[in-house]
């Protein structure tokens, strides 16, 4: 799924990395627990969906090479978060929708669940 499609489905423009609309993600992973994100077996082509907005969310994505994050429930990143995301080439999209709705609409349009260690 292209970032352009995610943008249209969520009705939200990327805040950072605005020229990444033609890049693609295959898998989605939703969590407010960063250790769960760090425990992902593979983070290639993963979109992180989270309601946790702080610097450690960006750091976690950096550590796992996750390039795309959707922040749900209308949270707005402060300048420090935006700057760290830019430094790491991360694309941030914010939506006012809930995590459940966001996951549902992305899943029903083809985004697969990320692989996890079981």
């Amino acid at each position, binding site marked *: 799924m292209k970032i352009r499609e995610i943008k249209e489905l969520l009705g939200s423009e990327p805040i950072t990395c605005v020229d990444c609309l033609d890049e693609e993600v295959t898998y989605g992973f939703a969590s407010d627990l960063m*250790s*769960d994100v*760090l*425990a992902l077996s593979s983070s290639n082509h993963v979109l992180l969906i989270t309601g*946790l907005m702080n610097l450690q969310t960006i*750091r*976690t994505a*950096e*550590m*796992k090479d996750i390039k795309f994050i959707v922040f749900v429930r209308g949270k707005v990143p402060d300048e420090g978060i935006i700057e760290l995301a830019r430094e790491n080439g991360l694309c941030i999209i914010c939506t006012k929708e809930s995590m459940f709705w966001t996951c549902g609409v992305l899943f029903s349009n083809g985004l697969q669940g990320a692989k996890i260690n079981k």
Partner: protein
Amino acid sequence: MIDKEILKLHYDIASGDYIKGGEASSNIKRALMQLGVDNDIIKRICVASYEAEINIVIHSLGGYMEMKIFEDRIELIASDIGPGISDIELAMTVGYSTATQGAREMGFGAGMGLPNIKTNCDELDIQSSEGGSTTITMKIYFNKVVS
């Protein structure tokens, strides 16, 4: 094991500093990328390093992170000045956590830190005593693959 040390990086980690927490691991990642280390190995090192660094921020009175590169492996050392782990076996249990509400608000304290470190290391050693310091040594070899 080959004991010729190629590079050593050292970072002091402050207790409770969620703003700078993660910077050491970020710097370690950049250094490994510049050295051309395999990407899958970098990811494993990053997860182990970041979890250990955040553990120092959350649980300790302060400490340091060190990364040493040898010809055949990378060693990460996370050491703090206390207050120590009373029951290491319990601390290794998935889901067990003594993290504060503040740590949980930052997205941590799910009881996955040490298990995540173990998953991503070839060798893990934890030395700790209640009321004393804790030192975690993590070894990741270049020629081993984690299943």
